[in-house]
């Protein structure tokens, strides 16, 4: 456990019968961090969150929150609160009673309690909603009430289980920004579960990508996007072009790789331990490839191909280029900077140029 870890998940495994939901995961989360658990449904992210909340117990391993082991602490005594996926607003209570629900133990005078609820209502931008019935709220409002209900208890950690999933796109984007701003203001640790990679990239300080109960990579949004550690992460986050190849030379921090279709290319070695003779994959993001009419002598690498089709998306365009020796068409994305389109709208021969450091060896 590192010293600044506020939440520490140590070698946690979780079995449901014979099904292994979590395979030996260790994660440290710092105080005040906006931390996301990202993965497709069934990857174990919600199970991990529920273990933090105390609704599930690890089959083995230990979870520490604020230095305390949590195995013997029941959910109602943990310093965490959760915002449920369906918000779980109590239907028999009004908004005020819902938000004040957890304050019972503090035995506050009524006036003080009302004042705290009103503060929360202001914070979530629903002032004057205290006397509304819980059943009269829209999805976005319910989400905010659930948030207020958890935050009023000043938890050390707020857990959020896909809280934006049920909202429509516009509201979701607005809530993403609001949540992030809120987290910065109050400065508590957020653990956020989502299957939406864009959402995770937008909001998080760090993201743990999970698949099949395993932790694939734990990194900053930039790290995940620019230097994925494996093919699963590379293809889960954004779009990625993969090229098969064999390492032919190793020099300092670079690897020379003979790829089918692209020929010999040089790519940074980064954290990989590949040596000469290893079969590897080279991954390049679509927007890192520059499409041009001719070979660019400035670029480190250049390859010719045939533009198959183009899709105009407004702020950018997507292209698919076939290259001899490469099985699948290569995706290329470019911003539409000038006002007259890209000029690449008909099938024809094109060149793709890229810089050395944009290629990732997997």
């Amino acid at each position, binding site marked *: 456990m590192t010293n600044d870890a506020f939440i520490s998940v140590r070698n946690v495994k979780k079995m449901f019968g014979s099904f292994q939901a979590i395979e030996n995961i260790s994660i440290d989360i710092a105080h005040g961090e906006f931390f996301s658990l990202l993965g497709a449904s069934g990857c174990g992210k919600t199970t991990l969150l529920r273990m933090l909340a105390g609704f599930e117990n690890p089959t083995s391993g230990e979870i520490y929150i604020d230095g305390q082991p949590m195995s013997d602490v029941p959910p109602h005594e943990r310093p965490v*609160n*959760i915002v449920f996926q369906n918000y779980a607003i109590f*239907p*028999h209570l009004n908004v005020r*009673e819902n938000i004040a*629900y957890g304050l*019972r133990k503090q035995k506050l005078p009524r006036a003080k309690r009302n004042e705290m609820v009103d503060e929360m209502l202001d914070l979530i931008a629903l002032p004057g909603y205290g006397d509304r019935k819980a059943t009269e709220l829209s999805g976005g409002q319910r989400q905010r009430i659930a948030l207020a*209900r*958890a935050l009023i208890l000043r938890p050390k950690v707020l857990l959020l289980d896909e809280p934006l999933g049920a909202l429509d796109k516009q509201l979701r984007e607005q809530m993403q920004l609001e949540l992030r701003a809120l987290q910065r203001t109050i400065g508590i640790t957020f653990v956020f579960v989502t299957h939406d990679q864009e959402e995770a990239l937008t909001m998080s300080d760090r993201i743990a990508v999970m698949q099949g109960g395993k932790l694939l990579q734990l990194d900053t949004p930039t790290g995940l996007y620019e230097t994925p550690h494996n093919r699963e992460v590379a293809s889960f986050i954004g779009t990625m072009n993969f090229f098969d190849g064999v390492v032919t030379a190793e020099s300092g921090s670079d690897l020379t790789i003979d790829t089918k279709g692209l020929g010999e290319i040089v790519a940074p070695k980064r954290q990989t331990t590949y040596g000469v003779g290893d079969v590897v994959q080279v991954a390049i993001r679509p927007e890192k490839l520059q499409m041009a009419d001719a070979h660019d002598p400035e670029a480190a690498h250049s390859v010719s191909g045939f533009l198959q089709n183009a899709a105009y998306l407004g702020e950018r365009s997507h292209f698919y280029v076939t290259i001899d020796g490469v099985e699948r068409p290569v995706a290329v994305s470019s911003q539409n900077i000038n006002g007259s389109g890209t000029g690449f709208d008909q099938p024809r021969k094109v060149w793709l140029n890229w810089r050395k450091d944009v290629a990732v060896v997997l």
Partner: protein
Amino acid sequence: MGDTAASPPDPLLHPKRRRRPLRGLMQRSEAIRAYILMSPTLVVMTLGIVIPFAILITISLWTAQGFGFDTSLTLNNYAQANEQPIYNALLFRSLKMSGLATVATVLLSYPMAYYVAFHVKRNKMMWIVLMTLPFWTSYLLRVFAWKVVLGYEGVINSGLLATGLIDKPLEFLLYSQSAVVITLAHAWAAFAILPLYVSLEKIDRSLLEAATDLGDGPVMRFLRVTLPLSLPGVISASLLIFIPTTGDYITPALLGGPDGTMIGNLIQLQFGPVNNWPMGATLSIILMLWIAGLALVFLFLTQLAKKKLT
């Protein structure tokens, strides 16, 4: 061609609407649609409830004279029912006994319904069927079965005698108010379990987790979330048992003895051997009014309790 202007409009372009006034009305008014849908029930209810009720009220205003009735309308029966201590005594005893039976049934059924709703993962239907199994035999048989269990030489007494815990049979078991309450509670259990189960099953599990997450231990969580949300089930279970058991006369007749006689037995007597129909009708109506009044008080109290709990 002058006649083209007068020719009828093209039927393809302007298909003639057949006028169907009833249909139009149904389309326009939701209330009318609802009444038409309800009409069979309304007819049955009118014929089966409202008319007999009117007849009952009318008879209660008559007076018995020998073998016939004096059909002049008078409230004498009500005054008499109020003055005669036996009527009131039996009425309050009935209300007390069925009240006890209701409380006992709901208290005993709630944990069972709770268990099936929250802890049974598979074969829920089988559990429900098993719990309602007593209901599959006739009411009379169930009452007789309790007679066998509670009787002077019944299961309990002979069991206790055999183990040497008592040296002569317990006499209070049978032909007493407790025998009636026990039998009623058992006989009507299915009416409590089913509504309780439905209301518990409906509760969203994440609400319980939310309550836990917000700091409630199991007891507080039950009092603040589970119980208030299952109150509709508790209310309907209570009413479903209280209303029919108050007027029950089979169980008290067979198991009650002199101490356990209820108002239903008296009413049955009036319509049978005593042949005083007007008094029987009067007692029935008084009983109905009491039940209605108590049900309203009960509903009011549960509303109050709901506010208090939350």
